[in-house]
């Protein structure tokens, strides 16, 4: 199955990001496809490379970047990102800032859109 993923909450503050990450790993392990991960609302904060995390905890943005390196499409909403100070300068590698139209595309091309939010 082809899953589109929508993440609406920020990292650490909320489990949405962790749940989405684990869902994606589990889906890929089962042979499913991830058509893309769209970061919206405070979800865009998942994609700043300025995170500085103690060694005994997970680094959420690095984790996303690594997933992106494996070919999972990471899309950050430009309007939501601008509001929260997420720009190209602070964006993790393997993610891109793009328009809400991309979320629409995910809704159209995925078998299921799975939302992680509050």
């Amino acid at each position, binding site marked *: 199955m082809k899953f589109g993923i929508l993440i609406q909450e920020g990292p650490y503050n909320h489990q949405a990001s962790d749940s989405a990450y684990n869902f994606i790993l589990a889906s890929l392990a089962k042979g499913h496809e991830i058509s893309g991960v769209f970061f919206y609302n405070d979800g865009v904060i998942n994609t700043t490379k300025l995170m500085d995390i103690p060694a005994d905890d997970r680094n959420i943005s690095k984790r996303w970047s690594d997933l992106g390196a494996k070919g999972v499409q990471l899309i950050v*909403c*430009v*309007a939501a990102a*601008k509001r929260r100070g997420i720009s190209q300068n602070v964006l993790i590698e393997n993610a891109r800032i793009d*328009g*809400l*139209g991309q979320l629409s595309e995910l809704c159209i091309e995925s078998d299921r859109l799975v939302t992680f939010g509050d």
Partner: protein
Amino acid sequence: MSSLDVSGKTIELDEDGFLKNMDDWDKEVALALAKTENVDMTEAHWEVVNFLRDYYQEYKIAPMIRILTKAIGKAFGKEKGNTKYLYELYPAGPAKQACKIAGLPKPTGCV
């Protein structure tokens, strides 16, 4: 560009040349903004600008282009209700250029 001088007043602009304060807008400011876009304001240009201002006043957003073309056609005649007509008036894109001259906020760039 970060400001415009209009009849002795300094009008602040953002990095893309949009008004920083929407309240600064008047016809003279519109003409000065049009100049920054190399647009000569004719009656037809004003029709669109005034329409955008009214639309914003009523709905608090600028209409997306296909809504704009439809509405312009309805308000000013069928021959004007198409993208080509609007691009002839505002070659750099009616959404961006006409919104700027109308003193509306910068479109969020989300399509």
